[in-house]
């Protein structure tokens, strides 16, 4: 086995779970996530010489690009006109008494609510909460400024809170606690 291949397996392949998690959340199905990851990993291998610093954010940036390309081809509507200027920084919001709904929400509802977020919000949320990456790393992966990461994340959480609230109000059952 070549030295290059051995190093790649050592440095990059351990992050295949992170790659798949991101791809799965962005494509929202197993089959396409596998295809996207496969393609992205081959691309990563090709550009392996360009790896500087940590492998995980580097790989995720490549996976993220593959996902966006995939979405452009297969789900163009999801990437439809999206303007970060609309993300006026949200002031302290007044959410009402059922605010602690997040703590009691059921797993399936939460997953559905995240999956229903626009892709641009979903990606920063997954990178932050599930991959625990810093704003700086997320900015590099999503190719946006750090300020944009912050405002997208803020909006993502707000949208999520709102939709969880709507779900539990509709079902009427999940709010107690």
């Amino acid at each position: 086995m070549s030295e290059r291949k051995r190093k790649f397996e050592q440095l990059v392949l351990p992050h295949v779970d992170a790659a798949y998690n991101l791809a799965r959340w962005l494509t929202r199905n197993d089959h396409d996530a596998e295809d996207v990851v496969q393609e992205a990993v081959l691309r990563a291998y090709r550009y392996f010489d360009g790896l500087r610093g940590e492998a995980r954010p580097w790989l995720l940036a490549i996976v993220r690009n593959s996902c966006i390309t995939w979405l452009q081809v297969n789900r163009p509507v999801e990437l439809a006109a999206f303007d970060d200027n609309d993300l006026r920084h949200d002031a302290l919001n007044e959410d009402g008494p059922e605010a602690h709904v997040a703590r009691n929400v059921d797993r399936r509802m939460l997953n559905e609510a995240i999956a229903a977020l626009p892709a641009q919000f979903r990606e920063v949320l997954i990178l932050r909460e599930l991959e625990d990456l810093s704003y700086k790393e997320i900015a590099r992966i999503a190719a946006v400024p750090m300020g944009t990461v912050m405002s997208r994340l803020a909006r993502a959480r707000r949208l999520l809170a709102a939709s969880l609230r709507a779900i539990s109000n509709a079902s009427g059952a999940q709010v107690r606690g």
Partner: protein
Amino acid sequence: MNGEEVGRLLHAYVDGELDPAKSLELEAYLAGNPAAREACDRLRGISGAIREKADYHAAPAPLAARLRASLPAVPDEINRRAAWPGRLKLAASFAAAILVTWFAAIGYLRPDGDERIAQEALASHLRATLVNRLAEVASSDQHTVKPWLSARLTFSPPVMDLSAHGFELVGGRLDYIAGRPVAALVYKRRQHMIDVFVWPGQAAAGERTFARDGFNVTGFARDGMLFWMVSDLNQNELHDLSRLMAGNGRAP
């Protein structure tokens, strides 16, 4: 701080991305504002719920095996060469966009080098002041303070008697700055408390001075030691102290 600013900073705060000085400011605001505190709790609730309950999709085992098998022994050279210029251009423009906006828009996120040390020093000073524990060893005698610190650190900080110059030694404590334990010497001038943080190191530049939130922070190096002082004392008098310390207790 107004509600809008708080709303903006709260996420960075909950994510641990806010610098120490700004965090303290926010914490002070939260302490006096139950509604904001509740918003903060809600945010932690949402974040916690996602971390705890959202699905983490690990790669199916066959995928990892397939990936390993699919790596060609020799990478595709031609493809690589052809692909570079376009990618480089793209990468450069992304990088430029990120840098420009970053520096222009959010100076308060994760600053670097001296500025970060200045902020850490300020935050440590404020924290110690808030809980009223500036001096763990309270003594105006340099021969008490110095051994106390030396016994607890891997270096021996210079402790000077500067009372003749109007800077009264109050004591010292241990603190933690720039990722290491440091000595904090506490001096007093009139009613102003001054923290002087000392640890071994070389300065990249000469004396650096920062002003933030009504506090002055000054850093310099002497004889292999770094000195960072923080106080609400005015810049001129703080500068007097730094010159005294740089001159080892003698007025220049």
